[in-house]
């Protein structure tokens, strides 16, 4: 019975992996390679690729700058409302990206927050800045989770010893905690970047998804599917997969053996 159950579990694992592999491979083998190459060189694709990389890079930096202190505070400190903060931060993981985009549209369009920002010249809705904001809100919960568990795994005694040797809380964080959390920080950087590159629903609603303006790779895929331009849609899909694959490859190469 035990052997049968074991065989069943392994079979399911192989079956799903096979289906996923076939699905990914079909993206590469079904279309004409010439179409892919020509689509890659179009102005729209180059624009979309550049915009995706630039916005994702900026968003990743901002996400890490926010997720490191948030993750550390959740891992190390006790404060009133900690469980509520943790739950709300995790919410975007659970609900659809489109709903997150709608919430952000309301926040930056209809409330005093958006109006105050617009008053000082910062326009978020239907702008490139909106892409970054949507990516940040989409990726932040993932980065926070990874960093929180990373900080939790570091024995507090390292920090206590550092404090007793004359270093302040911040100096200890910089000299001891951050170097020890390097693996987790690297992992969350890769995951955040990949998540930002693939952010679609929230970006579409908040930034508008307009042609050659707020058009990131997932938006290119979406717009071209709508027009029936399968070559461009498949090409943007392939580019997204290649970027994700490279991210995981780099992660495995740099941190794989260490984690």
């Amino acid at each position: 019975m035990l052997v049968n159950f074991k065989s069943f579990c392994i079979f399911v694992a192989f079956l799903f992996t096979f289906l996923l592999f076939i699905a990914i491979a079909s993206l590469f083998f079904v279309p004409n390679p010439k179409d892919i190459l020509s689509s890659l060189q179009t102005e729209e694709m180059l624009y979309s690729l550049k915009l995706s990389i630039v916005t994702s890079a900026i968003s990743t930096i901002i996400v890490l700058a926010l997720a490191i202190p948030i993750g550390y505070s959740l891992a190390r400190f006790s404060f009133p409302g900690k469980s509520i903060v943790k739950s709300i931060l995790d919410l975007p993981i659970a609900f659809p990206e489109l709903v997150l985009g709608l919430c952000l549209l309301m926040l930056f369009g209809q409330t005093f927050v958006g109006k105050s920002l617009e008053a000082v010249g910062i326009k978020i809705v239907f702008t490139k800045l909106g892409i970054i904001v949507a990516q940040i809100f989409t990726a932040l919960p993932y980065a926070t989770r990874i960093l929180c568990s990373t900080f939790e795994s570091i024995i507090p005694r390292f920090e206590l010893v550092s404090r007793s040797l004359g270093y302040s809380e911040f100096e200890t964080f910089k000299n001891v905690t951050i170097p020890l959390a390097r693996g987790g920080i690297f992992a969350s950087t890769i995951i955040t970047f990949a998540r930002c590159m693939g952010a679609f629903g929230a970006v579409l609603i908040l930034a508008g998804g307009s042609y050659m303006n707020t058009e990131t790779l997932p938006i290119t895929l979406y717009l071209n599917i709508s027009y029936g331009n399968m070559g461009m849609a498949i090409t943007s899909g392939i580019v997204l997969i290649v970027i994700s694959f490279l991210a995981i490859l780099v992660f495995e190469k740099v941190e794989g053996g260490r984690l």
Partner: protein
Amino acid sequence: MILEIENLSVDLGEFKLNDVSLKVNRRDYVTIIGPTGSGKSILLETIAGFYKPLKGRILLEGRDITGLPPEKRCVSIVYQDYALFPHMNVFENIAYGLRKKESNASVIKEEVKRIAEILGISHLLHRKPTTLSGGEQQRVAIARALVVKPKLLLMDEPFSALDVKMRESLRKLVRRAVKEYDTTVLHVTHDFDDVFSLANRVVVMKNGKIMQTGRPENVFSKPSNDFVADFVGTNILEGVVIGKENGLTLIRVGEHILYSTDHAEVGERVRVSIRPENVTISNEMRQTKNTFLCSVEDIRRGTNLVWLTLRSGDLRFKVVTTPSSIDTVDVGKNVFASFKAVNVRIVR
């Protein structure tokens, strides 16, 4: 007086300190003993500044440090699990605290070299902590704590993860290093060998309270209450002083008469303590005073020592001895147990 703790109370939920007061002299080596959960480690970590007390004060060299952050206290701590920074090599670990105080690289190098020589780790300076044995890691941790010349060195069960041989060698090194650096030490331990080979004072704790402090030989031979007696393994017997003879006090314990060099008034009800290691056993009667024919009730064998429970009428007591001295002894057999009058201490 280097450290004065006044009515310190800390509440961490499961662990507490209740109204703890303690005075420590400069250059004292104080061992803190007590059962698990008695508050020994919390006491150290509160002195280090990791916990905020509910009430009470901590004075270091007369200065109130209760509200100071750990980095402002000049108090170093060494843990059982070493807590060496894994991303630094041994040299960087030892130099870590020095770098905060000293910017001159050659001074740092000299100081690291000095402490490394004292603790016998000069050949390990380039190694990463994960490549070292437990004993080597603990020497590095002690070096890192001592090199900054702390006013107080706190050690939380520093030898408990090491084997017996390594503990003995580390005790020698610690004794030397502490002397060289002229440091006052508070050392939490479960090992009575640490108490007798390192400390000039011992503190016994229970349920977040200090039960007794004093010189180790006094605490072990004259425990102030039943808990301390039981914890340190001292035999406590109750009796009445019935007379004096050649400067000795005669105490009736049940049907037996015990002789003590301690003074007490005739008629006084007293408790006497006898350390298990001060009882000798033999198959022949060696002396007349304080010698009793006993039956062996129980024998427990350790690595280097053997614990026996003996009974003579209503007198029941523990004895600790070496395996070679009980070759012919077995449970149910009779032996003579004897102890000197000087080892029969009167506890009131």
